[in-house]
């Protein structure tokens, strides 16, 4: 019978392997699954390709994972956030590679990956350095760039409420990349502050259908990046 609840973040991320591609939900701190990321730091997997819009701030969450040297490649749109010091150092040392993708193209590539669309055309980036080396095509008189779908071995996301079927809803702008990353992950792991039995969520308001989520884990009082950074926290502490 179906029950996707896992007892702890540690158990939920236990099988993430060296060299895996991992999508991590969140735009800045909104929607960042910090407890799952910290569990991944503890777990030790390395040589990861990480997909997130940013590169984290301070030395917690995403930035802590990068600082720990576990990330060999970042795929993101904006690695240069204020208070983001960890990634620049590794980038300049050549230890972490960067694939810079326009934010909307990133979101669409992830959705495409999850939706079985191997490639699509977009006007975004045409004629710019980010289109260099990419196939272009004129359709109805406008120029477009060919972009490919993106999938991941694992996706880590943060919901506000989930059920044991894996249905998830989010909190305000914490939704951001999570629904498309959930689609694109071979194994999608969602932390949520509340976990209900099936039927606990109105079927009309579910944002991520359970079919896209493999594991749910209860994190009752998730930390926020800005508060951790403000308190001077680092991970591991």
């Amino acid at each position, binding site marked *: *019978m*179906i029950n996707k609840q896992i007892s702890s973040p540690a158990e939920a991320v236990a099988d993430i392997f060296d060299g895996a591609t991992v999508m991590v939900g969140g735009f800045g701190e909104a929607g960042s699954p910090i407890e799952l990321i910290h569990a991944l730091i503890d777990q030790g997997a390395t040589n990861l390709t990480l997909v997130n819009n940013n590169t984290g701030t301070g030395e917690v969450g995403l930035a802590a994972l990068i600082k720990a040297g576990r990330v060999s490649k970042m795929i993101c749109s904006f690695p240069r956030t204020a208070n983001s010091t960890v990634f620049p150092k590794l980038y300049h040392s050549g230890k972490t590679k960067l694939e810079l993708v326009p934010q909307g193209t990133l979101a669409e590539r992830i*959705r495409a*990956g*999850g*939706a*079985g*669309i191997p490639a699509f055309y977009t006007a975004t980036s045409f004629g710019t350095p980010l289109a260099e080396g990419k196939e272009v095509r004129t359709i109805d008189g406008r120029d477009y760039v060919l972009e490919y779908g993106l999938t991941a071995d694992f996706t880590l996301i943060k919901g506000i409420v989930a*059920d*044991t*079927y894996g*249905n998830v809803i989010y909190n305000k702008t914490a939704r951001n990349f999570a629904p498309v990353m959930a*689609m694109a992950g071979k194994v999608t792991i969602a932390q949520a502050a509340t976990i209900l*039995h*099936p*039927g606990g*969520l109105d*079927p*009309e308001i*579910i944002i991520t*259908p*359970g*079919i*896209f989520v493999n594991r749910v884990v209860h994190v009752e009082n998730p930390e926020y990046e800005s508060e951790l950074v403000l308190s001077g926290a680092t991970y591991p502490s």
Partner: protein
Amino acid sequence: MTTEQEVIGRTREQMAERVAQDIPDGSYVNLGIGIPELIAHYVPEGREFIYHTENGLLGMGPSPEVGGGEPELINAGKRRVTAISGACYFHHADSFAMIRGGHIDLCVLGALQVAENGDLANWSTGGADAIPAVGGAMDLVAGVKTIYVITQHNTKDGQPKLVERCSFPLTGVNVVSRIYTDLAVIEVSEKGFQLVELSPGVSFEYVQERTGAKLLPIPSK
């Protein structure tokens, strides 16, 4: 071909029950219209399947009582259904993202013809007068991880539905994994139609005679 086939082998209900035995617990399943729908009545004890209907519902439940239900809670066959606890609604593009993106574990469809290379024809007989109608069949066979076919072994006219090459327009190329008929369970292998199981009381020769391609016997262990 005689009317023997009416009484030999599995009934439609038994075919559906046989398919259900092969569906792992926790599977997300899309059932085609017709015989495939019967499968939902035969979920084995201790297993739970979640049914997807491509018009936007995951967690489709049984039909409502006759005369009951709602006009806006329907399945892909446009018949009234119910929703289970834990169901959710979504729009068509999301629904086919589930299909095309490989998120549905299993789809069971009917067939006009299945070829020994796994090609499926189930949407058109190619007749000049027929109005073509494809629905979601091509999306399902292209996107769902495992495609099972459930069908009578032969047409009403006694023609084989399992053939060397489909003569009807294809729904998909090399997409069928297994075929469940009244007479047998057959796997589509790299070498062709691999017999997996004969229906009770049915002989290999009886099935081969009614199959339009070579049937590989069950390997002796």
